[in-house]
């Protein structure tokens, strides 16, 4: 067991190193740089750009810049943003809260609603409910989030004036209810597509289970239909869903770029895009490493759980 763990840890570290090298190289080899945004500034001269690049250490050879960066990282220094000079970890954690709030809420909504719709659709197959939700799911999957978000803003913020048009909270009023009311539109818009996805998965998973022999056995021994459904069908159908939910967790970090843009939500998606746009390498690298670590840690933990739970999986 210990050997297996060490082995996996070693593999993960090598993988992280590769990710960092490739990420660093791709970022720095792409044309432009952190200073290119100043090129058209009136009075900006090449001389001044070169001087600033030198002061920022951007004119050093790439391998040296990389080694400098990774050496600091190993000492726990994630560097500072080129844009606003804030420590990278502080920037990431600042945006992480906004993203977790939005994505978490929307994920809870979409999983709960999606599984319910899926189960109901599967048990009442070819009913009006099943047809309606199936068509609705197809429509939801085909609507671009951007467009849907704008329509929602038009209807609920501009016309009806029920909900705020965007932002995470009213500046100066950071109460729970204020967050909640700001959360309604973006989380529902974001959840819409996920509800469709979840309901489709859940429907087919339920259908698969519902036709199996042990369900017939359960019915034969006289269990009520409700008990059969809850104790046997749903429980078994949920297993692949849990794996799926687990796999989706790291994607939370990527944020929801489109929704964040439409609703001016200060999340990770915007941070990543803005940092890329300004060639803010320390932040982009920070985000890259951060998510790589989480993905690797996640899969390591998942593998361990599987190994513990299932004696057929051999370690070593």
């Amino acid at each position, binding site marked *: 067991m210990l050997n297996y763990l060490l082995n996996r840890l070693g593999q993960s570290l090598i993988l992280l190193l590769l990710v960092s090298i490739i990420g660093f190289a791709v970022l720095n080899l*792409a*044309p*432009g*740089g952190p*200073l*290119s*945004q*100043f*090129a*058209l*500034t*009136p*009075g*900006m*001269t*090449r*001389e*001044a750009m070169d001087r*600033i690049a030198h*002061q*920022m250490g951007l004119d050093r050879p790439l391998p040296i810049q990389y080694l400098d960066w990774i050496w600091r990282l190993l000492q726990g220094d994630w560097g*500072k*943003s080129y*844009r*606003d*000079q*804030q420590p990278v970890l502080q*920037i990431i954690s*600042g*945006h992480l809260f*906004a993203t977790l709030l939005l994505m978490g809420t929307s994920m809870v909504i979409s999983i709960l609603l999606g599984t319910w719709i899926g189960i109901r659709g599967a048990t009442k197959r070819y009913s009006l409910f099943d047809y309606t939700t199936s068509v609705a799911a197809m429509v939801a999957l085909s609507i671009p989030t951007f467009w849907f978000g*704008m329509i929602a*803003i*038009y209807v609920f*913020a*501009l016309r009806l*004036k029920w909900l*705020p*048009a*965007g*932002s*995470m909270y009213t*500046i*100066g009023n950071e109460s729970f209810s204020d967050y909640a009311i700001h959360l309604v539109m973006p989380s529902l818009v974001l959840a819409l597509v996920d509800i469709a996805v979840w309901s489709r998965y859940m429907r087919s998973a339920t259908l698969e289970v519902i036709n199996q022999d042990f369900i017939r056995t359960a019915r034969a021994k006289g269990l009520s239909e409700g008990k059969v459904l809850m104790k046997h069908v749903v429980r078994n159908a949920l297993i692949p869903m849990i794996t799926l939910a687990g796999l989706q967790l790291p994607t939370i970090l990527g944020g929801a770029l489109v929704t964040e*843009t*439409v*609703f*001016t939500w*200060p*999340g990770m998606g*915007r*941070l990543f895009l*803005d940092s890329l746009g300004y*060639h803010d390498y320390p932040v982009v690298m920070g985000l890259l490493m951060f998510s790589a670590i989480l993905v690797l840690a996640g899969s390591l933990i998942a593998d361990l759980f599987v190994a513990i739970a299932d004696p057929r999986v051999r370690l070593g």
Partner: protein
Amino acid sequence: MSDEQHTILTRPTRRQALGLMALGGSGIMFSGLPGISQALAASGKTISGQLTVGFSQEPTVFNPHMPHIEVDDGVHFALYDSLFSVDPEGKFVPGLASQVPTVENGGISADGLQWKIKLRDGVKWHDGKPFTAEDVKATLELLVDANFRSWRKTGHDLVRDLTVVSPTEITWRMEKPFAPYPSILASTFITPKHLLSATADPNNAPFNNAPIGTGPFKWVERVAGDHILLAGNPDYYGDGPYIDKLIYKYVPDLNVMYTQFKTGDIDVVGLQWITPDHYDEAKALEGKVVNVVPGSTVESFTFNMERPQFKDPAVREALYAAIDKQSIIDALYYGLPAPTESYMPQQSFYFNPNLPKHAYDMAKAKALLDQAGWKPGADGILAKDGTRLAFTCSTTAGNHIREQVQQYIQQSFKELGVEMTISNLPPAVMWGDYWMLSKFDTVIVGLDFLTGSDPDTSDYFRSTSSGAKGGSGQNNWQYANPEVDALLTKGGEIFVPEERKAVYLKIQDIMRKDLPFLPLFQYATVRGHKQGIDNVLANVNVRIDTWNVATWRRA
């Protein structure tokens, strides 16, 4: 405010009227408008309420001396003051200096070498410490400090013998006369010595993210990726502020920003403004003031003068005649921008209204090329002495309107027997070495040629300012004309605006004749704010809307 809310065609706004009157040659400086500060000085000052400005880029640099973009200026104007600033008419008005130095009042010696600045007394930094001449000295020294990541040293590097005469007076000597320096000083914010210059590493001083100024608003907080919150400074020495909570909200998408303007979440639509396609709808919005504002940026079709095709002046003139400017403006830019013949904004004191007017004339274009000896080759493309009249045209890939302009021009040129190939590049490539080292044939670009209100364009037109020839500057046309060089030198040494003017009128004449770039139009943007907010005024001499945010108030 009622004079600020109509279209350019029906009833011109004040700025447009200025332009039109200047065009008429009827004089440029107007005294009919009282200064904003005087108009409001009589009224009492109450600081209350909240105001939200939307920006489509995020302000991130709060140390005004470090490399930054326009949107950062938007916050600097609220936090800091310069010695003096520039108003919409291009006149300097006192800020931290109690009087704008001129040759007339003895602030600047006649040869432009000796400077003496009297400072306002009793001004305090936001942390309560007194502002003195030591702060001005420290700021000017920091700007040229070799270890400091200063974004601009131009002008400051000529300052010698900085002497603090008293807490309210400072003098210095210039290494050589440099007439643009007042304009540079007008956009140089003064920063506190005790928090910035006196720290061990000004590049990483805590000040950079917790700025302290003397300006009308104090720093409260920044939520990265979302907003910046400032509070009205009750101790401000000047007119204003009248707003208690000033919020700069980052709204990355222009459609979203416009929607939030409509819903009322945003009071003032700032940088990148309302997109032209929304103009018709926006001006009909109830409770909103929407107007078209000329900017200082001039769009041009730019040549690489070192390419053999473009050495012949007849070619440049013929291509100019073959561009249907007005149709481009009307069809692709919603008729908003004003056609121009000069690189100088039409609102500038130095604008030359008497340049020959461009006319779209294909027959003239054909005749010009024919007379100059350009004859069609076997492939139908004009050629002369083995040089084919074929070239590429580049601009930022993804700028759809410009791409359509290119296709439109391409058609016209084709009729002439000129082959223009469109070759667009992503922004980072386009405006990198490709632009700075003149690796293009032709480019469509919008440039702001001026430093603030100053007419000096040495960085652009001087023959030694070309990166491809080892110079430092943005003369990416590789334009070289000894007469212009001499005029630029002369203009840089005259400190009396009325005398300088003749020099720059002449330079505009020459540029119009030489045509290293074909001037297309001067940018105009659609701006909007909620009705009942006073003093939201455009100023062509600064880069950002909030230049006078101190005086913004709710009626």
